[in-house]
């Protein structure tokens, strides 16, 4: 275990950024999101959650796949280069790290998504324990311990000092690279911090949320439930929940004519949109009820069914905070719980 004083973090960032790209939570006009560290960037490690999850570090909101060039009647295709430089994501939370694990299930299983795989191979995650969890958090429900994140490096911020512990080879390598700024220390303070965090987590309103009945076997029963009919109504079909979510993985592939070549790129899509999975014959989900149901069925039923029971929700609570109509996955789970109780 190492530590570094908070005021020395800029030096650490500079050091890391000197040899590889570094993504940190940056405050831009009041909103904190992960962004490439630059000299003068306002790094914000105090705000618990970035607005968008840091999943873009591995699965960017949009990325080019290849470009077609035309010369006369001849067309050449130039594929986009895969990530080949190492980079660091600093300050991810335990839930966000778990979110990457969910994405791994999707993109690293066959057929492997080479763009994603290249980024995963070159990325090192420094995860930060949640100093003061908030009422929208429910990572505990998914077995995540926000007091002890599992990543390449785990870190804690205690009394003005950042504690640093490498957990993987990549983590060790990064530690070595940053060694000049780190000093060795024991784990006493960190243990106290962990205990404090866990105590707070116990008090969070959603921590006792029950996922009973939500699993890969619940398909028909949940799908056909009348509860959706009432639940979806406030949904205005914006994609906010999917865009802030650390586990949503759907994307669309589109072409853009630049005038001197056509770029084929992919970009996040949202199952909340009426043109989601639009095909020549139209859409396979025609109502908002169907689209709304899809999102939660996917996270709580279809995904666990295909991934050894792993839910594709990590309880980060971003959707709880950002939904314009105050809808969220917690309300969905509770609604079913209530209905179950009523029966």
């Amino acid at each position: 275990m190492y530590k570094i004083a908070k005021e020395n973090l800029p030096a650490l960032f500079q050091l890391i950024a000197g040899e590889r790209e570094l993504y940190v939570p940056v405050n831009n006009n009041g909103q904190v999101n992960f962004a490439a560290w630059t000299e003068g960037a306002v790094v914000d490690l105090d705000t618990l959650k970035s607005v968008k999850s840091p999943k873009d570090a591995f699965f960017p909101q949009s990325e080019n796949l290849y470009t077609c060039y035309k010369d006369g009647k001849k067309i050449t295709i130039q594929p986009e280069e895969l990530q080949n430089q190492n980079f660091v994501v600093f300050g991810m939370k335990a839930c966000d790290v778990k979110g990457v694990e969910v994405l791994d299930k999707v993109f690293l299983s066959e057929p492997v998504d080479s763009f994603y795989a290249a980024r995963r191979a070159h990325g090192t995650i420094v995860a930060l324990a949640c100093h003061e969890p908030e009422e929208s958090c429910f990572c505990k429900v998914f077995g995540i311990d926000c007091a002890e994140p599992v990543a390449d490096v785990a870190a804690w911020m205690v009394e003005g000092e950042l504690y640093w512990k490498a957990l993987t080879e990549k983590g060790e390598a990064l530690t070595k690279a940053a060694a000049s700024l780190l000093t060795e220390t024991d784990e006493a303070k960190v243990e106290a911090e962990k205990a404090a965090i866990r105590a707070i987590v116990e008090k969070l309103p959603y921590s006792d949320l029950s996922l009973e009945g939500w699993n890969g076997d619940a398909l028909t029963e949940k799908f056909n439930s009348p509860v959706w009919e009432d639940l979806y109504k406030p949904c205005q079909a914006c994609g906010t929940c999917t865009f802030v979510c650390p586990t949503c993985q759907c994307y669309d592939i589109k072409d853009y004519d630049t005038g001197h070549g056509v770029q084929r790129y992919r970009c996040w899509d949202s199952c909340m949109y009426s043109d989601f999975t639009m095909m020549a014959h139209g859409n396979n989900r025609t109502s908002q009820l169907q689209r709304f149901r899809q999102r939660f069925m996917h996270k709580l039923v279809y995904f666990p069914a295909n991934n050894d029971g792993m839910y594709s929700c990590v309880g980060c609570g971003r959707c709880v905070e950002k939904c314009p109509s105050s809808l969220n996955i917690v309300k969905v789970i509770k609604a079913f719980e209530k209905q179950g109780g009523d029966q």
Partner: protein
Amino acid sequence: MQRIGVFVCHCGSNIAATVDVKKVVEMVQMEPGVVHAEDYQYMCSEAGQAKIAAAIHEKNLTGIVVCSCSPRMHENTFRTAAQRAGLNPYMVEIANIREHCSWIHKDMEEATKKAVILARAAIAKVNLNTPLQPGESRVTKRALVIGGGIAGIQTALDIADAGYEVDIVEKTPSIGGRMSQLDKTFPTLDCSACILTPKMVEAAAHEKIKIYTYSEVEKVSGFVGDFTVDIRKKARSVDANKCTGCGVCQEKCPSKKAPSEFNRGLNTRSAIYTPFAQAIPNVPVIDRDACLKFKTGKCGVCEKVCQAGAIDYTQQDEIVTEKYGAIVVATGFDTIKLDNYDEYAYNQSKDVITSLELERIMNAAGPTKGHLERLSDGKHPHEMVFIQCVGSRCSDNRGKSYCSKICCMYTAKHAMLIRDKYPDVNVTVFYIDVRTPGKNFDEFYRRAVEEYGVNYIKGQVGKVILKPNGKLLVQGSDLLDNKQILKEADMVVLATAIEPEPSVRQIATMLTASIDTNNFLTEAHPKLRPVESPTAGVFLSGVCQGPKDIPETVAQAGAAAVKAIGLLAKDKLMTNPCTAKADELMCNGCSTCANVCPYGAISYEEKEVNDHGIRETRRIAVVNNALCQGCGACTVACPSGSMDLQGFSNRQIIAEVDAICR
């Protein structure tokens, strides 16, 4: 994917001298969809069109781009050619590489580059073209002529003689127009009334002609073949059916101080009046602003003296709604106001008059019974000065930039008439140029100079000064002798510029006919379609289109009539298929489009739709293709982009933008 053929025209050397047409052919072949490209000397020629037809057949072309002159010139030619070869005419697009390229650029490389880009834009558009089918609309076999001067009368007579109903709407109490105010006409010097009056009578008597005098066009809706027009018949206060035209009412009318419009305000008339003796109809009107009965409630003399009981003070304006297939505008002209020309002392001296006023003075029915005399003191003048181009050919904004065309000739006429009748009067004419193109015109002018001794001075008049003794001092310059001239005159006559009758603006707006900066109505083409307005079904007759003299006016009136007859002779018309269309699955039914439609072409229907499986009844915009003129205002007002314009669709225009910007 379309199969596009590109045809690049040399236009002789008009294009080929500046644009490397071979290079254009080579470059456009790289464009998506292009399967054929060739160049030719004159694409619009029969041989050129045959090349297009051959390519359509040989290469199974589905779309055509012609790189040539402006589509305003030959779009129709090429569309027709394509149609003859079995292609939908709306699959043709023109890249204007002459007016917009070869004629304005000198550098060949640059012009060629631009021509290729313009061609690309047209190709990109054609790629998205779809075959369009014109609709049909019926033709109402009746024409409206707005204006009852010689232009309107002649047009009406010609249309009526061809067997079609025609209505004349004239805003003054009588038809006749400006020509009825003229004394003699050039270059024959025959009496204006003598040749006009028979035409007026003929029109009035014609069984196919209906005349609305003292009436104005109030509202026009509809479109070519099917106009609906509201005509306001102003209250005459005299029952035209009862009136015998005896004239007693005018004699007895105690209110005789209203300025006579017919005599240009040089004398007065009674409150109940017919503008002139030969007026048609010979039914007086009561000028309610001048009539004592209307002003004070006391009088009623005319009612008492009218044997026929035709006076009706309670008469109201009446709106008549009629349908017409064609409309001819013949609104004529007026002379300009001389408020900007203080230097000629027009407003200071009664002896400075306009030429039109001189016409009235010379006329036996005029204010002086035809005697040439000074209006200030009734004395016979000895020295008369004519000043040409007053307000015409003006380089500043006080007057008009154009030449009024008729002034040179009527001034020569006036000079000659005066010298002939009053050999004691010296006549001097100040002119910039004397313009006499026309049959027997120059001979006429030369007679004025050579036989009648009229003194022509090339030069402009700077000032006319009213002297205390009542005479006028004209300060001018003689450009040929290069000297200043001071000339004393008893009368000064100003050849005042003419301008379109001011009410033409409103009429043009109602007809959606375009108008130029001088308020002259614009022709559909300045050379090839000079009597048609760009608005289908609207034709132009007389000075409303541009200055002209009587024979030209009559000629144009006949031409306008022929165009109208050509339209009325059809039973059905093909409508422009480039109309707006709402995508019913995207339409919100919000009415925004209808709010901006100038033709009232959009209405709403409750319609059952199947939106990808969702069946519901929705309020949806429906465009009437016969009413829609294809302006596109609705397409931009529509927030969802549901409304689109066929032939100029969003995607087509965007494709052009992309092609130009890439």
